[in-house]
């Protein structure tokens, strides 16, 4: 008796009441729609779809070789008070992966090993660098990669920023026009 009264009180004839269950079922479609993009993104981070969205090139650094790529062909992203950050990925050659202790990346020539820039994280075949990009960076600036060997030796290679990331150059032009 009491159940019947409760059911009556819920206004079961309401269209919203009858369809809200089906609408909540539709929410399950959201992850299904986003799953392919998520899988694609994870393949970029994991290296399954290559070193990055845009391959920059390979250079010899003394006895070693390093390949650089832009993770995404995008302008740097603002990271709070740390400023704009841009992500590059790099891979060491198979024979040199065990000889290189660390790889650093920065804009402009480092003054010393302490100021060699951000360190590469991850496997030697898919290191990731999140590098700060000051808004007043010169358009002819160069990316400097410093490779530090386990034997203490240092090797450096450079790429013009214009060649390494046209999207960053476009971003800097916009910032400097303001």
């Amino acid at each position: 008796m009491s159940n019947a009264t409760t059911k009556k009180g819920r206004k079961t004839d309401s269209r919203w009441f009858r369809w809200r269950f089906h609408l909540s079922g539709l929410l399950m479609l959201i992850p299904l729609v986003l799953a392919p993009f998520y899988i694609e993104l994870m393949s970029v981070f994991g290296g399954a779809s290559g070193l990055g969205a845009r391959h920059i090139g390979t250079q010899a650094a003394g006895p070693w070789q390093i390949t650089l790529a832009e993770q995404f062909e995008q302008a740097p992203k603002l990271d709070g008070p740390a400023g704009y950050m841009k992500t590059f990925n790099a891979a060491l050659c198979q024979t040199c992966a065990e000889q290189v202790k660390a790889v650093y990346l920065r804009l402009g020539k480092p003054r010393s090993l302490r100021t060699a820039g951000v360190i590469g994280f991850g496997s030697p075949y898919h290191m990731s660098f999140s590098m700060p990009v000051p808004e007043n960076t010169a358009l002819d600036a160069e990316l400097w990669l410093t490779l530090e060997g386990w034997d203490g030796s240092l090797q450096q290679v450079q790429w013009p920023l214009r060649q390494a990331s046209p999207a960053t150059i476009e971003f800097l032009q916009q910032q400097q026009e303001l």
Partner: protein
Amino acid sequence: MYKASLRRTALVALSGVWSSLALAHFPFVECHQGTVDIVCQGGFSDGSSAQGITVDLISYDEEIIASKTFNDASSVEFAPYDGEFYILLDAGPGHTVEVDWNEIKAP
């Protein structure tokens, strides 16, 4: 065309979420000229303090003029140095930030 645009939007949105997680703690330091001393405020982009982290004032010929650590207010003060120099926050290899003498903000 529509599919390509949707794909790009979704990738950018997702990468924004994941990259912000990955970049959650990049160090920063800002310096300004105080009444007498140079005052620097340090920290990390996730809002955490730089207390206890080494910060050096180094001349252009790589001589360490002063070596200090950030205090409990995540700031540090250096006596004025007559010459070209830079201030280096050193939170470990690959976690450094430089402020050149000509980037120090006027009082």
